[in-house]
Protein backbone atom coordinates (compact mmCIF):
# COMPACT_ATOMS: atom_id res chain seq x y z
CA UNK A 1 0.00 0.00 0.00
CA UNK A 2 1.03 3.58 -0.35
CA UNK A 3 2.93 5.13 2.50
CA UNK A 4 1.15 7.98 4.24
CA UNK A 5 3.04 11.27 4.03
CA UNK A 6 5.12 11.90 7.17
CA UNK A 7 4.16 15.50 7.54
CA UNK A 8 1.01 17.35 6.66
CA UNK A 9 0.98 19.81 3.81
CA UNK A 10 -0.19 19.89 0.22
CA UNK A 11 1.16 17.18 -1.96
CA UNK A 12 0.06 16.36 -5.50
CA UNK A 13 0.54 12.67 -4.88
CA UNK A 14 1.41 10.39 -2.04
CA UNK A 15 4.79 8.70 -2.34
CA UNK A 16 4.84 5.14 -3.63
CA UNK A 17 7.48 2.58 -4.60
CA UNK A 18 5.60 1.74 -7.78
CA UNK A 19 7.14 3.32 -10.86
CA UNK A 20 5.50 4.74 -13.94
CA UNK A 21 3.30 7.44 -12.43
CA UNK A 22 4.61 10.25 -14.61
CA UNK A 23 4.55 8.21 -17.78
CA UNK A 24 1.06 6.74 -17.39
CA UNK A 25 -0.60 9.86 -16.03
CA UNK A 26 1.13 12.02 -18.63
CA UNK A 27 0.08 9.79 -21.50
CA UNK A 28 -3.49 9.43 -20.18
CA UNK A 29 -3.89 13.18 -19.77
CA UNK A 30 -2.42 13.92 -23.20
CA UNK A 31 -4.68 11.35 -24.87
CA UNK A 32 -7.74 12.53 -22.92
CA UNK A 33 -7.00 16.13 -23.86
CA UNK A 34 -6.49 15.40 -27.55
CA UNK A 35 -9.43 13.07 -28.07
CA UNK A 36 -12.05 14.40 -25.66
CA UNK A 37 -11.25 17.74 -24.07
CA UNK A 38 -10.03 19.81 -27.04
CA UNK A 39 -12.90 18.69 -29.33
CA UNK A 40 -15.51 19.30 -26.61
CA UNK A 41 -14.10 22.70 -25.70
CA UNK A 42 -14.14 23.50 -29.40
CA UNK A 43 -17.90 23.02 -29.25
CA UNK A 44 -18.23 25.24 -26.19
CA UNK A 45 -15.96 27.87 -27.73
CA UNK A 46 -17.94 27.90 -30.97
CA UNK A 47 -21.27 28.28 -29.19
CA UNK A 48 -19.87 31.02 -26.95
CA UNK A 49 -18.62 32.82 -30.06
CA UNK A 50 -22.19 32.88 -31.33
CA UNK A 51 -23.17 35.61 -28.92
CA UNK A 52 -26.20 35.62 -26.72
CA UNK A 53 -28.71 37.03 -29.23
CA UNK A 54 -27.95 34.47 -31.93
CA UNK A 55 -27.80 31.65 -29.40
CA UNK A 56 -31.15 32.65 -27.94
CA UNK A 57 -32.72 32.95 -31.41
CA UNK A 58 -31.68 29.35 -32.23
CA UNK A 59 -32.62 28.03 -28.82
CA UNK A 60 -36.12 29.51 -29.00
CA UNK A 61 -36.72 28.53 -32.61
CA UNK A 62 -39.94 26.51 -32.67
CA UNK A 63 -38.35 23.62 -34.52
CA UNK A 64 -35.50 23.43 -31.98
CA UNK A 65 -37.87 23.56 -29.03
CA UNK A 66 -40.12 20.89 -30.54
CA UNK A 67 -37.16 18.63 -31.28
CA UNK A 68 -35.86 18.98 -27.72
CA UNK A 69 -39.33 18.37 -26.32
CA UNK A 70 -39.69 15.23 -28.42
CA UNK A 71 -36.24 13.94 -27.44
CA UNK A 72 -36.69 14.56 -23.74
CA UNK A 73 -40.38 13.59 -23.67
CA UNK A 74 -40.01 10.26 -25.45
CA UNK A 75 -36.83 9.44 -23.47
CA UNK A 76 -38.73 10.14 -20.24
CA UNK A 77 -41.67 7.89 -21.18
CA UNK A 78 -39.35 5.12 -22.39
CA UNK A 79 -37.29 5.28 -19.18
CA UNK A 80 -40.52 5.08 -17.14
CA UNK A 81 -41.65 2.00 -19.10
CA UNK A 82 -38.23 0.48 -18.53
CA UNK A 83 -38.42 1.13 -14.80
CA UNK A 84 -41.58 -0.98 -14.61
CA UNK A 85 -40.56 -3.80 -16.93
CA UNK A 86 -36.82 -3.64 -16.18
CA UNK A 87 -37.49 -4.04 -12.46
CA UNK A 88 -39.88 -6.89 -13.20
CA UNK A 89 -37.30 -8.62 -15.42
CA UNK A 90 -34.62 -8.17 -12.76
CA UNK A 91 -37.00 -9.61 -10.14
CA UNK A 92 -37.79 -12.67 -12.25
CA UNK A 93 -34.09 -13.22 -12.98
CA UNK A 94 -33.00 -12.86 -9.35
CA UNK A 95 -35.85 -14.58 -7.51
CA UNK A 96 -37.18 -17.34 -9.74
CA UNK A 97 -35.47 -20.47 -11.07
CA UNK A 98 -36.43 -21.61 -14.53
CA UNK A 99 -34.69 -23.46 -17.35
CA UNK A 100 -32.71 -21.17 -19.64
CA UNK A 101 -32.39 -18.45 -17.03
CA UNK A 102 -28.78 -17.76 -17.95
CA UNK A 103 -29.70 -17.35 -21.62
CA UNK A 104 -32.46 -14.89 -20.73
CA UNK A 105 -30.01 -13.05 -18.46
CA UNK A 106 -27.47 -12.77 -21.28
CA UNK A 107 -30.18 -11.63 -23.72
CA UNK A 108 -30.85 -8.57 -21.59
CA UNK A 109 -27.52 -7.12 -22.77
CA UNK A 110 -28.49 -7.43 -26.43
CA UNK A 111 -29.23 -3.69 -26.79
CA UNK A 112 -25.68 -2.95 -25.58
CA UNK A 113 -24.22 -5.27 -28.20
CA UNK A 114 -26.53 -4.83 -31.18
CA UNK A 115 -25.55 -1.86 -33.39
CA UNK A 116 -28.21 0.84 -33.18
CA UNK A 117 -28.78 0.96 -36.95
CA UNK A 118 -29.59 -2.76 -36.93
CA UNK A 119 -32.03 -2.26 -34.07
CA UNK A 120 -33.55 0.66 -35.96
CA UNK A 121 -34.33 -1.20 -39.19
CA UNK A 122 -35.45 -4.33 -37.31
CA UNK A 123 -37.92 -2.42 -35.12
CA UNK A 124 -39.19 -0.42 -38.09
CA UNK A 125 -39.85 -3.60 -40.05
CA UNK A 126 -41.67 -5.13 -37.06
CA UNK A 127 -43.86 -2.11 -36.35
CA UNK A 128 -44.54 -0.91 -39.91
CA UNK A 129 -48.27 -1.18 -40.79
CA UNK A 130 -47.60 -4.46 -42.65
CA UNK A 131 -45.03 -5.75 -40.14
CA UNK A 132 -45.41 -8.64 -37.71
CA UNK A 133 -46.50 -6.42 -34.82
CA UNK A 134 -47.74 -3.46 -36.85
CA UNK A 135 -50.46 -5.47 -38.59
CA UNK A 136 -51.79 -6.63 -35.23
CA UNK A 137 -51.97 -3.05 -33.96
CA UNK A 138 -53.34 -1.48 -37.18
CA UNK A 139 -56.94 -2.80 -36.71
CA UNK A 140 -56.91 -1.24 -33.23
CA UNK A 141 -56.05 2.10 -34.79
CA UNK A 142 -52.59 2.18 -33.20
CA UNK A 143 -49.79 3.45 -35.42
CA UNK A 144 -46.30 2.91 -34.04
CA UNK A 145 -43.82 3.24 -36.88
CA UNK A 146 -43.30 6.78 -38.19
CA UNK A 147 -44.91 8.35 -35.10
CA UNK A 148 -43.53 9.53 -31.71
CA UNK A 149 -44.76 6.20 -30.32
CA UNK A 150 -42.16 4.53 -32.54
CA UNK A 151 -39.45 6.66 -30.93
CA UNK A 152 -40.61 5.42 -27.52
CA UNK A 153 -40.44 1.80 -28.71
CA UNK A 154 -36.86 2.27 -29.97
CA UNK A 155 -35.82 3.95 -26.71
CA UNK A 156 -37.42 1.20 -24.61
CA UNK A 157 -35.23 -1.26 -26.51
CA UNK A 158 -32.09 0.85 -26.02
CA UNK A 159 -32.69 1.64 -22.34
CA UNK A 160 -33.82 -1.73 -20.94
CA UNK A 161 -30.39 -3.10 -19.89
CA UNK A 162 -29.54 0.11 -18.01
CA UNK A 163 -32.42 -0.44 -15.58
CA UNK A 164 -32.03 -4.23 -15.28
CA UNK A 165 -28.24 -4.08 -14.75
CA UNK A 166 -28.54 -1.32 -12.13
CA UNK A 167 -31.36 -2.93 -10.15
CA UNK A 168 -30.32 -6.60 -10.42
CA UNK A 169 -27.13 -6.53 -8.26
CA UNK A 170 -28.90 -4.58 -5.51
CA UNK A 171 -31.77 -7.08 -5.55
CA UNK A 172 -29.30 -9.95 -5.21
CA UNK A 173 -27.84 -8.37 -2.08
CA UNK A 174 -31.12 -8.10 -0.18
CA UNK A 175 -30.93 -10.32 2.88
CA UNK A 176 -33.53 -13.01 3.16
CA UNK A 177 -33.50 -12.48 6.94
CA UNK A 178 -35.04 -9.01 6.62
CA UNK A 179 -38.00 -10.39 4.73
CA UNK A 180 -38.31 -13.32 7.12
CA UNK A 181 -38.30 -10.98 10.09
CA UNK A 182 -41.04 -8.89 8.52
CA UNK A 183 -43.06 -12.02 7.77
CA UNK A 184 -42.62 -13.24 11.35
CA UNK A 185 -43.88 -9.92 12.62
CA UNK A 186 -47.06 -10.41 10.63
CA UNK A 187 -46.45 -8.41 7.45
CA UNK A 188 -48.10 -9.82 4.37
CA UNK A 189 -46.29 -10.22 1.05
CA UNK A 190 -47.60 -6.93 -0.36
CA UNK A 191 -46.46 -5.02 2.72
CA UNK A 192 -43.03 -6.66 2.58
CA UNK A 193 -42.61 -5.62 -1.04
CA UNK A 194 -43.84 -2.05 -0.68
CA UNK A 195 -42.43 -1.32 2.79
CA UNK A 196 -39.25 -3.41 2.97
CA UNK A 197 -38.03 -4.25 -0.51
CA UNK A 198 -38.99 -1.18 -2.50
CA UNK A 199 -37.29 1.43 -0.26
CA UNK A 200 -34.05 -0.52 -0.59
CA UNK A 201 -34.35 -0.71 -4.35
CA UNK A 202 -35.54 2.85 -4.94
CA UNK A 203 -32.07 4.43 -5.30
CA UNK A 204 -31.01 1.81 -7.83
CA UNK A 205 -34.25 2.27 -9.73
CA UNK A 206 -33.71 6.03 -9.81
CA UNK A 207 -30.17 5.55 -11.09
CA UNK A 208 -31.35 3.08 -13.73
CA UNK A 209 -34.04 5.51 -14.79
CA UNK A 210 -31.52 8.36 -15.13
CA UNK A 211 -29.09 6.25 -17.14
CA UNK A 212 -31.81 5.03 -19.51
CA UNK A 213 -33.18 8.57 -19.79
CA UNK A 214 -29.75 10.09 -20.52
CA UNK A 215 -29.02 7.47 -23.13
CA UNK A 216 -32.45 7.93 -24.73
CA UNK A 217 -32.10 11.69 -25.06
CA UNK A 218 -28.94 11.36 -27.15
CA UNK A 219 -29.92 8.26 -29.09
CA UNK A 220 -29.83 8.58 -32.86
CA UNK A 221 -29.23 5.37 -34.81
CA UNK A 222 -32.18 3.28 -33.66
CA UNK A 223 -34.62 6.21 -33.69
CA UNK A 224 -34.21 7.81 -37.12
CA UNK A 225 -35.52 4.78 -38.99
CA UNK A 226 -38.71 4.34 -36.99
CA UNK A 227 -39.47 7.99 -36.22
CA UNK A 228 -40.68 9.17 -39.60
CA UNK A 229 -38.73 12.37 -38.87
CA UNK A 230 -41.50 14.90 -39.48
CA UNK A 231 -40.35 18.37 -38.37
CA UNK A 232 -42.26 19.59 -35.27
CA UNK A 233 -43.85 16.13 -34.83
CA UNK A 234 -41.35 13.28 -34.72
CA UNK A 235 -37.98 14.94 -35.28
CA UNK A 236 -35.50 14.33 -32.45
CA UNK A 237 -32.85 16.85 -31.41
CA UNK A 238 -29.81 14.81 -32.56
CA UNK A 239 -31.40 14.52 -36.02
CA UNK A 240 -31.96 18.28 -36.12
CA UNK A 241 -28.23 18.73 -35.42
CA UNK A 242 -27.44 16.48 -38.39
CA UNK A 243 -29.92 18.36 -40.61
CA UNK A 244 -28.39 21.74 -39.66
CA UNK A 245 -24.91 20.35 -40.38
CA UNK A 246 -26.01 19.15 -43.80
CA UNK A 247 -27.30 22.69 -44.47
CA UNK A 248 -23.83 23.94 -43.46
CA UNK A 249 -25.61 25.85 -40.71
CA UNK A 250 -22.80 25.27 -38.20
CA UNK A 251 -24.02 27.89 -35.65
CA UNK A 252 -27.43 26.24 -35.30
CA UNK A 253 -25.94 22.73 -35.04
CA UNK A 254 -23.47 23.97 -32.44
CA UNK A 255 -26.09 25.77 -30.37
CA UNK A 256 -28.46 22.78 -30.27
CA UNK A 257 -25.55 20.52 -29.35
CA UNK A 258 -24.50 22.91 -26.57
CA UNK A 259 -28.03 22.95 -25.15
CA UNK A 260 -28.17 19.14 -25.21
CA UNK A 261 -24.72 18.92 -23.63
CA UNK A 262 -25.73 21.33 -20.88
CA UNK A 263 -28.88 19.34 -20.15
CA UNK A 264 -26.92 16.05 -20.19
CA UNK A 265 -24.40 17.56 -17.79
CA UNK A 266 -27.19 18.53 -15.40
CA UNK A 267 -28.52 14.97 -15.63
CA UNK A 268 -25.08 13.52 -14.92
CA UNK A 269 -24.95 15.71 -11.83
CA UNK A 270 -28.37 14.46 -10.73
CA UNK A 271 -27.27 10.84 -11.26
CA UNK A 272 -24.19 11.39 -9.12
CA UNK A 273 -26.27 13.09 -6.43
CA UNK A 274 -28.76 10.22 -6.50
CA UNK A 275 -25.93 7.73 -6.19
CA UNK A 276 -24.24 9.47 -3.27
CA UNK A 277 -27.62 9.94 -1.63
CA UNK A 278 -28.36 6.24 -1.93
CA UNK A 279 -24.88 5.32 -0.65
CA UNK A 280 -25.32 7.58 2.34
CA UNK A 281 -28.75 6.26 3.12
CA UNK A 282 -28.41 2.58 2.37
CA UNK A 283 -24.66 2.03 1.99
Amino acid at each position, binding site marked *: *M*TIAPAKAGWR*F*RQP*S*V*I*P*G*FGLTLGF*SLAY*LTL*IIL*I*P*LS*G*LIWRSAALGWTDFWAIATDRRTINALQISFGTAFIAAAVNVV*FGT*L*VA*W*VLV*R*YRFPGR*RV*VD*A*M*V*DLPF*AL*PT*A*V*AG*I*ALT*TLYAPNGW*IGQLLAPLGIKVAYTPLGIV*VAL*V*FIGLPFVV*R*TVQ*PIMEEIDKEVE*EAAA*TLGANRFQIITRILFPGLAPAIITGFSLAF*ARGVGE*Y*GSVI*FIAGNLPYKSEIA*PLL*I*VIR*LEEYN*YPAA*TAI*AAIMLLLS*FVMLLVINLAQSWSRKRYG
Partner: protein
Amino acid sequence: MADPVIKSYEPHHESRSAAVTESRPVQLLLMAVAFAFLAIFLLLPLIIVFHEALAKGFGAYTESLSNPDTRSAIRLTLLVAAIAVPLNVVFGISAAWAIAKFEFKGKAFLTTLIDLPFSVSPVISGLVYVLLFGAQGLFGEWLRAHGIQILFAVPGIVLATVFVTFPFVARELIPLMQEQGNGDEEAALSLGANGWQTFWYVTLPNVKWGLLYGVLLCNARSMGEFGAVSVVSGHIRGLTNTMPLHVEILYNEYNAVGAFAVASLLAGLALVTLVLKTLLEMRYGAEIAATRGH
Protein backbone atom coordinates in the same frame (compact mmCIF):
# COMPACT_ATOMS: atom_id res chain seq x y z
CA MET B 1 -16.90 -24.92 -14.56
CA ALA B 2 -15.70 -22.61 -11.82
CA ASP B 3 -18.25 -23.20 -9.14
CA PRO B 4 -17.29 -20.52 -6.62
CA VAL B 5 -17.89 -17.85 -9.24
CA ILE B 6 -21.29 -19.13 -10.19
CA LYS B 7 -22.26 -19.21 -6.55
CA SER B 8 -21.49 -15.52 -6.23
CA TYR B 9 -24.14 -14.84 -8.86
CA GLU B 10 -26.63 -17.27 -7.36
CA PRO B 11 -28.22 -15.64 -4.38
CA HIS B 12 -29.16 -17.95 -1.55
CA HIS B 13 -32.82 -18.42 -2.12
CA GLU B 14 -33.30 -22.02 -3.11
CA SER B 15 -34.78 -22.55 0.32
CA ARG B 16 -37.22 -19.67 0.34
CA SER B 17 -40.21 -20.37 2.54
CA ALA B 18 -43.69 -19.50 1.38
CA ALA B 19 -43.75 -16.42 3.61
CA VAL B 20 -40.91 -14.73 1.72
CA THR B 21 -41.89 -15.44 -1.84
CA GLU B 22 -44.95 -15.01 -4.01
CA SER B 23 -47.56 -17.71 -4.47
CA ARG B 24 -47.00 -19.99 -7.46
CA PRO B 25 -49.76 -18.44 -9.67
CA VAL B 26 -48.35 -14.95 -9.03
CA GLN B 27 -44.86 -16.19 -9.87
CA LEU B 28 -46.09 -17.68 -13.13
CA LEU B 29 -47.94 -14.50 -14.00
CA LEU B 30 -44.90 -12.29 -13.35
CA MET B 31 -42.68 -14.62 -15.36
CA ALA B 32 -45.17 -14.66 -18.23
CA VAL B 33 -45.30 -10.86 -18.36
CA ALA B 34 -41.50 -10.56 -18.18
CA PHE B 35 -40.94 -13.17 -20.89
CA ALA B 36 -43.58 -11.62 -23.14
CA PHE B 37 -41.91 -8.22 -22.75
CA LEU B 38 -38.45 -9.62 -23.51
CA ALA B 39 -39.76 -11.64 -26.45
CA ILE B 40 -41.43 -8.62 -28.03
CA PHE B 41 -38.65 -6.12 -27.38
CA LEU B 42 -35.48 -8.22 -27.67
CA LEU B 43 -36.14 -11.54 -29.36
CA LEU B 44 -38.40 -10.44 -32.23
CA PRO B 45 -36.04 -7.70 -33.48
CA LEU B 46 -33.21 -10.23 -33.51
CA ILE B 47 -35.28 -12.85 -35.34
CA ILE B 48 -36.58 -10.43 -37.95
CA VAL B 49 -33.03 -9.44 -38.92
CA PHE B 50 -32.24 -12.98 -40.03
CA HIS B 51 -35.74 -13.56 -41.39
CA GLU B 52 -35.57 -10.51 -43.67
CA ALA B 53 -31.99 -11.25 -44.70
CA LEU B 54 -33.02 -14.70 -45.92
CA ALA B 55 -36.44 -13.60 -47.23
CA LYS B 56 -35.44 -14.18 -50.85
CA GLY B 57 -33.41 -17.29 -50.22
CA PHE B 58 -29.83 -18.05 -49.39
CA GLY B 59 -28.62 -17.20 -52.91
CA ALA B 60 -29.85 -13.62 -52.68
CA TYR B 61 -28.30 -13.38 -49.23
CA THR B 62 -24.79 -14.40 -50.28
CA GLU B 63 -25.10 -12.40 -53.48
CA SER B 64 -25.80 -9.17 -51.60
CA LEU B 65 -22.88 -9.87 -49.29
CA SER B 66 -20.49 -10.29 -52.21
CA ASN B 67 -21.39 -6.86 -53.59
CA PRO B 68 -18.17 -4.77 -53.89
CA ASP B 69 -19.60 -1.85 -51.88
CA THR B 70 -20.58 -4.24 -49.11
CA ARG B 71 -17.12 -5.80 -49.19
CA SER B 72 -15.45 -2.42 -48.87
CA ALA B 73 -17.80 -1.48 -46.00
CA ILE B 74 -16.78 -4.66 -44.17
CA ARG B 75 -13.08 -3.93 -44.78
CA LEU B 76 -13.44 -0.34 -43.54
CA THR B 77 -15.27 -1.44 -40.39
CA LEU B 78 -12.53 -3.99 -39.62
CA LEU B 79 -9.83 -1.40 -40.30
CA VAL B 80 -11.43 1.22 -38.04
CA ALA B 81 -11.85 -1.28 -35.20
CA ALA B 82 -8.27 -2.48 -35.70
CA ILE B 83 -7.01 1.06 -35.09
CA ALA B 84 -9.51 2.34 -32.51
CA VAL B 85 -9.51 -0.66 -30.16
CA PRO B 86 -5.70 -0.89 -29.64
CA LEU B 87 -5.52 2.87 -29.08
CA ASN B 88 -8.14 2.67 -26.34
CA VAL B 89 -6.47 -0.44 -24.87
CA VAL B 90 -3.19 1.44 -24.47
CA PHE B 91 -5.04 4.38 -22.96
CA GLY B 92 -7.14 2.14 -20.72
CA ILE B 93 -4.12 0.34 -19.29
CA SER B 94 -2.21 3.56 -18.84
CA ALA B 95 -5.10 5.39 -17.16
CA ALA B 96 -5.87 2.40 -14.92
CA TRP B 97 -2.21 2.18 -13.83
CA ALA B 98 -2.09 5.87 -12.92
CA ILE B 99 -5.49 5.90 -11.20
CA ALA B 100 -5.47 2.51 -9.44
CA LYS B 101 -1.84 2.33 -8.32
CA PHE B 102 -1.37 5.89 -7.05
CA GLU B 103 -3.08 8.40 -4.80
CA PHE B 104 -3.13 11.89 -6.25
CA LYS B 105 -5.20 15.05 -6.17
CA GLY B 106 -8.02 15.28 -8.67
CA LYS B 107 -8.28 11.53 -9.19
CA ALA B 108 -12.07 11.44 -8.84
CA PHE B 109 -12.38 14.30 -11.33
CA LEU B 110 -10.16 12.49 -13.83
CA THR B 111 -12.28 9.34 -13.48
CA THR B 112 -15.40 11.39 -14.19
CA LEU B 113 -13.79 12.92 -17.29
CA ILE B 114 -12.99 9.45 -18.63
CA ASP B 115 -16.70 8.54 -18.45
CA LEU B 116 -17.70 11.74 -20.23
CA PRO B 117 -18.14 10.24 -23.73
CA PHE B 118 -20.88 7.95 -22.39
CA SER B 119 -23.04 10.94 -21.53
CA VAL B 120 -22.58 12.71 -24.86
CA SER B 121 -24.94 12.00 -27.74
CA PRO B 122 -23.13 10.11 -30.54
CA VAL B 123 -24.13 12.85 -32.96
CA ILE B 124 -22.36 15.43 -30.80
CA SER B 125 -19.29 13.16 -30.66
CA GLY B 126 -19.13 13.46 -34.44
CA LEU B 127 -20.04 17.14 -34.52
CA VAL B 128 -17.08 18.17 -32.35
CA TYR B 129 -14.68 16.84 -35.00
CA VAL B 130 -16.60 18.59 -37.77
CA LEU B 131 -16.17 21.84 -35.84
CA LEU B 132 -12.41 21.22 -35.61
CA PHE B 133 -11.59 19.79 -39.03
CA GLY B 134 -14.53 20.80 -41.28
CA ALA B 135 -14.33 23.43 -44.04
CA GLN B 136 -15.54 26.11 -41.60
CA GLY B 137 -13.71 24.43 -38.73
CA LEU B 138 -10.87 25.66 -36.56
CA PHE B 139 -8.16 23.81 -38.50
CA GLY B 140 -10.15 23.63 -41.76
CA GLU B 141 -8.09 26.24 -43.64
CA TRP B 142 -4.76 24.86 -42.50
CA LEU B 143 -5.69 21.28 -43.40
CA ARG B 144 -6.86 22.29 -46.87
CA ALA B 145 -3.69 24.29 -47.47
CA HIS B 146 -1.62 21.25 -46.59
CA GLY B 147 -3.82 18.80 -48.48
CA ILE B 148 -4.69 16.73 -45.43
CA GLN B 149 -8.10 15.08 -45.41
CA ILE B 150 -9.49 14.15 -42.00
CA LEU B 151 -13.21 14.68 -42.35
CA PHE B 152 -15.09 12.48 -44.85
CA ALA B 153 -12.10 10.13 -44.75
CA VAL B 154 -10.75 7.28 -42.64
CA PRO B 155 -8.96 9.46 -40.01
CA GLY B 156 -12.23 11.23 -39.11
CA ILE B 157 -14.08 7.91 -38.80
CA VAL B 158 -11.32 6.55 -36.57
CA LEU B 159 -11.34 9.67 -34.38
CA ALA B 160 -15.11 9.59 -33.92
CA THR B 161 -14.97 5.88 -33.09
CA VAL B 162 -12.15 6.38 -30.60
CA PHE B 163 -14.19 9.14 -28.93
CA VAL B 164 -17.29 6.98 -28.57
CA THR B 165 -15.45 3.87 -27.32
CA PHE B 166 -12.99 5.82 -25.16
CA PRO B 167 -14.16 4.70 -21.67
CA PHE B 168 -14.75 0.97 -22.24
CA VAL B 169 -11.33 -0.50 -21.38
CA ALA B 170 -10.42 2.07 -18.73
CA ARG B 171 -13.67 1.73 -16.77
CA GLU B 172 -13.28 -2.06 -16.76
CA LEU B 173 -9.67 -2.00 -15.55
CA ILE B 174 -9.76 0.82 -12.98
CA PRO B 175 -12.08 -0.82 -10.41
CA LEU B 176 -10.43 -4.19 -10.99
CA MET B 177 -6.90 -2.92 -10.39
CA GLN B 178 -8.06 -0.86 -7.42
CA GLU B 179 -9.56 -3.97 -5.89
CA GLN B 180 -6.36 -5.97 -6.42
CA GLY B 181 -4.24 -3.38 -4.65
CA ASN B 182 -0.49 -2.90 -4.95
CA GLY B 183 0.74 -5.88 -2.92
CA ASP B 184 1.77 -8.08 -5.85
CA GLU B 185 3.59 -5.26 -7.59
CA GLU B 186 5.43 -4.21 -4.43
CA ALA B 187 6.53 -7.80 -3.87
CA ALA B 188 7.84 -8.06 -7.44
CA LEU B 189 9.69 -4.76 -7.14
CA SER B 190 11.26 -5.70 -3.83
CA LEU B 191 12.49 -8.93 -5.43
CA GLY B 192 14.33 -6.88 -8.04
CA ALA B 193 11.95 -6.71 -10.97
CA ASN B 194 11.94 -3.45 -12.87
CA GLY B 195 8.75 -1.53 -13.57
CA TRP B 196 8.21 -2.99 -17.03
CA GLN B 197 8.77 -6.56 -15.82
CA THR B 198 6.36 -5.94 -12.94
CA PHE B 199 3.70 -4.77 -15.34
CA TRP B 200 4.28 -7.53 -17.89
CA TYR B 201 4.66 -10.53 -15.57
CA VAL B 202 2.56 -9.48 -12.56
CA THR B 203 -0.10 -6.88 -13.33
CA LEU B 204 -1.08 -7.93 -16.84
CA PRO B 205 -1.70 -11.62 -15.95
CA ASN B 206 -3.77 -10.42 -12.98
CA VAL B 207 -6.08 -8.31 -15.11
CA LYS B 208 -6.09 -10.23 -18.40
CA TRP B 209 -9.72 -11.40 -18.23
CA GLY B 210 -10.97 -7.98 -17.24
CA LEU B 211 -8.94 -6.51 -20.09
CA LEU B 212 -10.43 -9.01 -22.53
CA TYR B 213 -13.90 -8.12 -21.27
CA GLY B 214 -13.24 -4.44 -21.90
CA VAL B 215 -11.78 -5.15 -25.35
CA LEU B 216 -14.86 -7.20 -26.23
CA LEU B 217 -17.27 -4.39 -25.39
CA CYS B 218 -15.01 -1.76 -26.97
CA ASN B 219 -14.81 -3.77 -30.19
CA ALA B 220 -18.56 -4.37 -30.38
CA ARG B 221 -19.22 -0.67 -30.07
CA SER B 222 -16.53 0.39 -32.56
CA MET B 223 -17.86 -1.94 -35.23
CA GLY B 224 -21.46 -0.95 -34.57
CA GLU B 225 -21.17 2.80 -34.01
CA PHE B 226 -23.58 4.72 -36.20
CA GLY B 227 -24.38 8.28 -35.08
CA ALA B 228 -20.87 9.66 -34.57
CA VAL B 229 -19.46 7.98 -37.67
CA SER B 230 -22.46 9.07 -39.74
CA VAL B 231 -21.69 12.75 -39.02
CA VAL B 232 -18.00 12.58 -40.02
CA SER B 233 -18.05 10.01 -42.81
CA GLY B 234 -19.62 11.87 -45.73
CA HIS B 235 -21.27 8.59 -46.83
CA ILE B 236 -19.09 8.02 -49.87
CA ARG B 237 -19.99 4.58 -51.21
CA GLY B 238 -17.11 2.16 -51.37
CA LEU B 239 -14.82 4.64 -49.60
CA THR B 240 -16.11 5.99 -46.28
CA ASN B 241 -19.08 3.74 -45.60
CA THR B 242 -18.78 1.51 -42.58
CA MET B 243 -21.12 -1.47 -42.19
CA PRO B 244 -23.77 0.34 -40.10
CA LEU B 245 -23.77 3.26 -42.58
CA HIS B 246 -24.05 0.84 -45.47
CA VAL B 247 -27.08 -0.73 -43.77
CA GLU B 248 -28.73 2.68 -43.73
CA ILE B 249 -28.01 3.40 -47.40
CA LEU B 250 -29.28 0.02 -48.59
CA TYR B 251 -32.37 0.33 -46.39
CA ASN B 252 -33.18 3.79 -47.74
CA GLU B 253 -32.81 2.43 -51.28
CA TYR B 254 -35.52 -0.13 -50.42
CA ASN B 255 -32.97 -2.93 -50.78
CA ALA B 256 -34.31 -4.80 -47.76
CA VAL B 257 -32.43 -8.04 -48.41
CA GLY B 258 -29.13 -6.18 -48.84
CA ALA B 259 -29.66 -4.03 -45.75
CA PHE B 260 -30.65 -6.98 -43.57
CA ALA B 261 -27.86 -9.16 -44.97
CA VAL B 262 -25.26 -6.65 -43.74
CA ALA B 263 -27.32 -6.19 -40.57
CA SER B 264 -27.25 -9.96 -40.00
CA LEU B 265 -23.43 -9.87 -39.91
CA LEU B 266 -23.57 -7.13 -37.27
CA ALA B 267 -26.24 -9.06 -35.35
CA GLY B 268 -23.97 -12.11 -35.53
CA LEU B 269 -21.16 -10.02 -34.08
CA ALA B 270 -23.49 -8.92 -31.27
CA LEU B 271 -24.43 -12.54 -30.51
CA VAL B 272 -20.79 -13.66 -30.46
CA THR B 273 -20.01 -10.73 -28.16
CA LEU B 274 -22.84 -11.72 -25.81
CA VAL B 275 -21.77 -15.37 -25.72
CA LEU B 276 -18.11 -14.53 -25.00
CA LYS B 277 -19.15 -11.95 -22.42
CA THR B 278 -21.37 -14.48 -20.65
CA LEU B 279 -18.62 -17.12 -20.72
CA LEU B 280 -16.15 -14.63 -19.25
CA GLU B 281 -18.61 -13.70 -16.51
CA MET B 282 -19.29 -17.35 -15.70
CA ARG B 283 -15.68 -18.52 -15.65
CA TYR B 284 -13.85 -15.48 -14.42
CA GLY B 285 -16.59 -13.52 -12.65
CA ALA B 286 -14.36 -12.73 -9.69
CA GLU B 287 -11.45 -11.72 -11.91
CA ILE B 288 -13.41 -9.21 -13.94
CA ALA B 289 -14.75 -7.52 -10.80
CA ALA B 290 -18.27 -6.45 -10.01
CA THR B 291 -18.50 -4.02 -12.88
CA ARG B 292 -21.25 -5.50 -14.99
CA GLY B 293 -23.35 -3.42 -17.29
CA HIS B 294 -22.25 -1.36 -20.29
